[in-house]
């Protein structure tokens, strides 16, 4: 019930924002950290998916599977639970930016985020936006961005939540959340502990996924204090500690003995002052990240990479009229990064962006954005974006967006001894998209086409430097064009207490090297996921489906090296034993790979066959 209220409230809140922008003052006092709201506001012409906590709950054991079954993202996963990277629209993994409460958290060392080392269950809401976002989120926001948000709400409540999941392969996921709200203070506290032996059978081969175990510990704390009607201060902190073993490969999984540990610690202080037409927001952040790679899990020795980031951001927005506003973001960031191979290097950056929002009646709205970065190491291109949304007829919309975005070279690209290339420049890309759609209370369809023209792509190439034959080295080489079509639909039916929700994402993607006209490997032409959920009173059932098209692993598109397409489905359900305003007790189950298909996402790495987990969700 509460959940439903929350969703309803959020939906209402968004729609009110769209229709009467002056009303947002009321709401911002209610909820702290409106990353999601800000995102929607700045996403004219782009498609944003909202993964609510009920969707998250259905895939809570794996971030990878959450994205795989609910978003138009292609995931390369090195065996279930192994290294996992995401790409939008046929771009590379380093062209996907992950944003934690408004801050880009892609690794300094390799420019990517590893999705199996992020625990999602403690986030309140996740947004997935397709399309460029370098102006708001900096490097790597090229193909799209994934936003992890913690939310705090003032009010009068005190809630506990415990979720416990037990599954095949000795998988245990447990979390505890406490949230408290008064008129002036809001607190949220969360702890999660996940562990799995992850030793699933490789049925076709009479082998098993050896060395695949993982363990994650996660702790979150956030607090907000209302100082007066205009001033709020909030603090978000998150600490993560994970240990994973990297599972083996065909034909001999027993050869595997690698281990990987990662630690992250993220802290953000937010001062917010809002009065009449002006809003000032000051952010101070301190983030650390470290990985340790053990070539042999039985040994003490490891390779590592770590980084420390200090960030200060001043965001000023001014409402010019009820229909227009202007915002300025000024940000200074200092990063110290090092690995066992690279001595500490500092990189400092100042960036300034301007965003102008304009609305014309209820008919059209636009965002115009520019950003310039000044970086101590290289020239970052000037970037800009323009997004427009028009509602020509009742319930229909036309959206279009064009932007320039970039991805800076990572520390590994630049400084890796004997291999790195200090002359690298940032990748940049120009992109455009156009979409049309229809939306009413029950049904939404969005049909879009995109085009991305990227240059100076950083590619690790053997013999990339003619003076260094045989050496793998990163060079700014590829010009890549990605184009495609995307369809997404959501449909909700409701008849006498029966609720049915249907969501579908389909994308058709072509990515080609502009010079050679070769296809870019690891881009599925067809990617489709769909989920249907049925609820009646206290019962809920759902089914999730993924069709992952054939993926070529080589540039010359040879079938014998391709990964075949696969279809997989998950089926789950839940029953609420107790459901009232004060308490909620839910029992659930989920059968992953319900049709027991054998499939591989990446060569030599079979994925799990049918497996099951049970969960208890208790709110009080």
């Amino acid at each position, binding site marked *: 019930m509460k959940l439903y209220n929350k969703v309803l409230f959020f939906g209402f809140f968004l729609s009110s924002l769209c229709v009467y922008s002056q009303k947002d003052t009321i709401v911002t006092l209610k909820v702290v950290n409106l990353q999601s709201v800000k995102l929607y506001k700045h996403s004219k012409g782009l498609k944003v998916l909202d993964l609510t906590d009920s969707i998250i709950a259905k895939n809570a054991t794996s971030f990878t599977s959450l994205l795989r079954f609910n978003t138009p993202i292609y995931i390369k996963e090195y065996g279930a639970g192994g290294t996992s990277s995401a790409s939008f629209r046929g771009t590379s993994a380093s062209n996907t930016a992950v944003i934690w409460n408004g801050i880009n958290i892609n690794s300094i060392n390799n420019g990517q985020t590893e999705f199996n080392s992020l625990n999602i269950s403690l986030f309140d809401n996740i947004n997935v936006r397709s399309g460029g976002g370098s102006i708001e989120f900096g490097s790597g926001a090229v193909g799209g961005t994934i936003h992890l948000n913690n939310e705090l709400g003032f009010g009068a409540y005190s809630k506990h939540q415990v979720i416990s999941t037990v599954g095949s392969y000795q998988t245990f996921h447990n979390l505890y959340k406490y949230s408290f709200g008064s008129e002036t203070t809001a607190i949220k506290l969360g702890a999660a502990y996940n562990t799995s032996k992850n030793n699933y059978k490789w049925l076709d081969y009479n082998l098993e996924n050896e060395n695949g175990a993982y363990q994650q510990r996660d702790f979150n704390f956030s607090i907000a204090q209302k100082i007066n009607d205009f001033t709020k201060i909030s603090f978000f902190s998150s600490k993560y500690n994970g240990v994973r073993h990297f599972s083996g490969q065909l034909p001999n999984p*027993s*050869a595997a003995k690698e281990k990987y540990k990662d630690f992250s610690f993220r802290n953000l202080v937010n001062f917010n002052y809002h009065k009449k037409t002006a809003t000032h927001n000051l952010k101070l952040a301190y983030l650390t990240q470290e990985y340790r790679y053990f070539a042999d899990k039985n040994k003490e020795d490891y390779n590592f990479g770590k980084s420390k980031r200090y960030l200060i951001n001043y965001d000023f927005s001014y409402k010019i009229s009820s229909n227009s506003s202007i915002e300025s973001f000024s940000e200074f960031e200092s990063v110290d990064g090092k690995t066992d191979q690279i001595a500490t290097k500092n990189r400092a950056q100042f960036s300034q962006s301007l965003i102008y929002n304009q609305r014309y009646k209820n008919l059209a709205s636009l965002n115009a954005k520019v950003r310039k970065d000044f970086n101590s190491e290289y020239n970052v291109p000037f970037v800009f974006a323009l997004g427009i949304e028009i509602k020509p007829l009742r319930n229909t919309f036309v959206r279009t967006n064009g932007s320039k975005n970039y991805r800076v070279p990572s520390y590994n690209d630049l400084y890796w*001894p004997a291999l790195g290339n200090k002359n690298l420049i940032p990748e940049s890309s120009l992109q455009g998209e156009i979409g049309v759609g229809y939306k009413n209370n029950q049904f939404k369809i969005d049909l879009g086409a995109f085009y991305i023209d990227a240059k100076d792509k950083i590619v690790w190439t*053997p013999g990339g430097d003619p003076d260094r034959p045989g050496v793998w080295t990163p060079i700014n080489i590829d010009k890549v064009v990605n184009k495609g079509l995307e369809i997404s639909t959501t449909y909700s039916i409701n008849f006498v207490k029966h609720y049915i929700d249907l969501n579908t994402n389909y994308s058709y993607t072509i990515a080609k090297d502009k010079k050679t006209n070769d296809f870019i490997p690891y881009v599925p032409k067809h990617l489709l996921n769909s989920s249907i959920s049925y609820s009646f009173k206290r019962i809920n059932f759902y089914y999730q489906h993924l069709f992952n098209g054939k993926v070529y*692993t080589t*540039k010359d598109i*040879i079938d*014998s090296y391709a990964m075949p397409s696969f279809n997989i489905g998950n089926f789950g359900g839940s029953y609420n034993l107790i459901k009232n305003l004060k308490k909620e007790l839910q029992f659930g189950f989920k059968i992953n790979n319900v049709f027991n298909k054998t499939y591989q996402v990446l*060569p030599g790495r079979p994925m799990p066959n049918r497996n099951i987990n049970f969960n208890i969700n208790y709110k009080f």
Partner: protein
Amino acid sequence: MKISNFLLSIFLLSVIFVSCTNDDDDVQEPKGAYENGILISGEGGPSGSIYYVSNDFSTTESLIYKKVNNNDLGVYLQSMAFDNENAYIVVDNQNTITVVNRYTFEKVGEITTDLKKPRYMAIAGDKGYVTNWAEGAYGADVDDDYIAVVDLNTFEVTKTISVGNGPERIVANNGKLYVSHKGAYTTNNIITVIDIASETTTEITVKDNPDELFFDNAGNLVVLCEGLTLSYNPDWTANEKTPVSITKISTVSNNIISELIFENGQFPSLLTFDGSYFYYNLGSKIYKVASDASTLPTTEFLDAAATNLYGIEVNDSYLFLLDASFTAQSKLDVYSSNTKEKINSFAAPIGASKVYFN
């Protein structure tokens, strides 16, 4: 229609009949589809793989192991060894040697235990000897490297012989094994001689990072010592190495007989031998030197113009050069070793590194 079907079936029957009788008479029965050709092995991107090219260059076939066995070999396919019947495919990261019939490529077994980073295998009698890097580059483990002794009747590792750090190539001759120690993750400068009967080992010190091993016509051991990089240019090319040489060692006395030392700045990485001449590379240029020469040539034999020259092999008439790609198929260029003309060019596996004659 019916008549034609009848005729067709008669014809098919006759074909079967004829081929059956032929088979019975034929003493020269082909041993398999992959006899009389060359095998090209590739380390892999997605998986290691093997391609076939017939000796007359008329037929080619890609991914022959996968085609026959509907399975992959894994990464990274380092090398192959052969006895009369079988081919032994060494895949280092998977600690695996897959055994196939060398002519049909049907899998006959695999060795997945007691190997740790296997690299190369030599065969003597009914035993295989496999160099293993064992554990990583750390601490005390640097010296845990070993030779695994494989019983070729059971495909089991029956014992191990401990050797110095980083054993790479291994060759057998006259009751002895010769192992070059390229140094695995670090560096080394020895050749280990193992007496097969007694399993006693002797070390011969050579220049740094010895790799390819051959026996010349006089029965001497020849090794390419590739040198240890001492300093890099600003663009990370090797600026200076410890001496690089082609070293000749007496297999009688285990003493160094002669050394052809390269000028500083000349860093060969590949060496092969056709019985009378050695071929080596400097970048993608190929040089040819007689096995009894006392000086190195100053001009190249031919320029392979390869992007990433990763393997060379030679027989009586042809020079085989592998231009490797790790993101697409590689290329095998065949040159006449007499006229230096390019004869042919074939697709080769991803990360192609070796050519074997079958």
